């Protein structure tokens, strides 16, 4: 019996250990991501992610932001121009941001996917690394 209780406790502890850092990891990543966002994204996409009409697309609940993470990482790395988002055309040019580190891209996308009313899974460094073109 003691053994069973002990195993149960260990399991519970390890579960806690697993979930807690996950949550605080998301928050830490978001916090770091906000700094990246304010430096490189805010000028066009605005403080509230609303963008600028017909110039810079919004980042609020769009399929680009909430959908395929690999595509989203690709947009940050390669830039984008002349895009249609939710039926509206946006004409401004987004420069490639491939100079950002894997960590910065993961953080900023985690921030964007969990701000402005968005709620979606975090983007990890491993996912960014996998999407980066091989040298």
């Amino acid at each position, binding site marked *: 019996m003691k053994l069973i209780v002990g195993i149960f406790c260990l399991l519970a502890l390890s579960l806690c250990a697993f979930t807690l850092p996950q949550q605080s990891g998301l928050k830490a990543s978001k916090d770091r991501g906000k700094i990246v966002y*304010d430096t490189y994204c*805010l*000028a*066009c996409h*605005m*403080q*509230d992610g*609303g963008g*600028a*009409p017909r*110039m*810079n697309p919004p980042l609020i609940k769009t399929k680009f932001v909430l959908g395929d993470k690999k595509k989203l990482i690709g947009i940050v790395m390669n830039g984008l*121009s*002349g895009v249609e988002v939710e039926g509206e055309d946006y*004409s*401004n*040019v*987004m*420069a*490639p941001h491939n100079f950002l580190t894997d960590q910065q891209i993961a953080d900023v996308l985690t921030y964007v996917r969990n701000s402005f009313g968005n709620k979606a899974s975090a983007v990890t460094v491993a996912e960014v690394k996998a999407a980066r073109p091989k040298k």
Partner: protein
Amino acid sequence: MSIFRQSFYCLMACLLTLSACAGDTTKVATNGPVPDPDNGGIKLPAGFGGQIVADKVGRVRHIFVNSNGDLYAKLEKLKDGKGIVRLRDKNGDGKFDETVGFGNFIGTGMAIKNGYLYASSNTEVFRYKLDEKNEVPDGAQPEKIITGLWDHHQHEAKPFTLDNNGNIYVTIGAPSNCCQVQDRVKGSPGQSPCPILDSAGGIWQFKVDKTNQSYAEGVRYATGLRNVMGLDWNTAVNSLYVTQHGRDQLFQFYPEMYSQKEGAENPSEEMFKVKLGSDCGWPYCYYDYTKKQKVLNPEYGGDRTKAGDCGSKEQSIVQFPGHLAPNDLLFYTGDMFPEKYKNGAFIAFHGSWNRAPEPQAGFFVVFVPFGKDGMPNGNWDVFADGFAGADINKAAYRPCGLAQGPDGSLYISDDNQGRIWRITYKK
């Protein structure tokens, strides 16, 4: 007849009269247009009145009012499959009550001259012949007078104006911020010479009465203009005047040279008087609003002091704070407004985006007084304001087009919600 019965008849007569009036919606207004009690929600100088004369028209870009009072609006997005809308006021109350759509192309430019209506897509200019009723007849097919102009999804609109000698002047905006090797990439150098200038970044002159003209048939009238949205032929001095949208991202690309606030106010949006061969300086030069001088762009070695050969470029005649986006220009020739407005310039500012995190600005119509010599003779002033509404960062209405009515009233169009105001003056 008893007093009771007399009162009864009287009451019945009154009621009949009232109901007759209430039911008669086609009645012609005898008092003419009357400003809205709140001036259509915008702020104007004393003595001026504003009236909302059309709403939800579509993405109204430039507008023109014909000599019979019909207003033609060019749409940036098709509405019910149409790219041009004709609005008509049938009962004389100022408000447009008839809408007719035609033309299957989107675009910005719109003008009427010598019996033709001209309208542009983002690559072409068309013209429709007006009929004996002074209107574009049903089912009319336009002539394509200009074709094959650049559209690379940035500064792609083709606004235009016409002179009195059979020429049309068309903006070809540069599909670029500052002609860098890699557009809008921090650290990418400026190209010298800038190859874009061969095909864009200027004003091209064509003939109004020749079909299918393109670069080979046109003349590069003025160059070094990044993107001109407002252009008008000033008939008082027979010259072309233009308003340029200046470059973006000085603070974002060069934070060591510009504070955030300086980036929000630089470079100046500029107004030029241009002549054949004018070079206004883009992408090599910009007008520094803080330092009040035309200097080299940092992509071309500028440090906010070095002027290079910017002194030899065409100098602007009016400078505004950065990023306000002057989207239309109109020299006022009417008799309705007070004397100081005669031959002066109205400029519709579309409003900014490249000021964040500073609050956005613009979203107003400015007036610049001009002397008889065709040069400004006073400071610019905000003429009509309040289009943005309560939240300047989420502008409700954005001025985009200007037109003058046959009676001298001024029309202002908005391309966000498709509202049109008429501004009148009463002594």
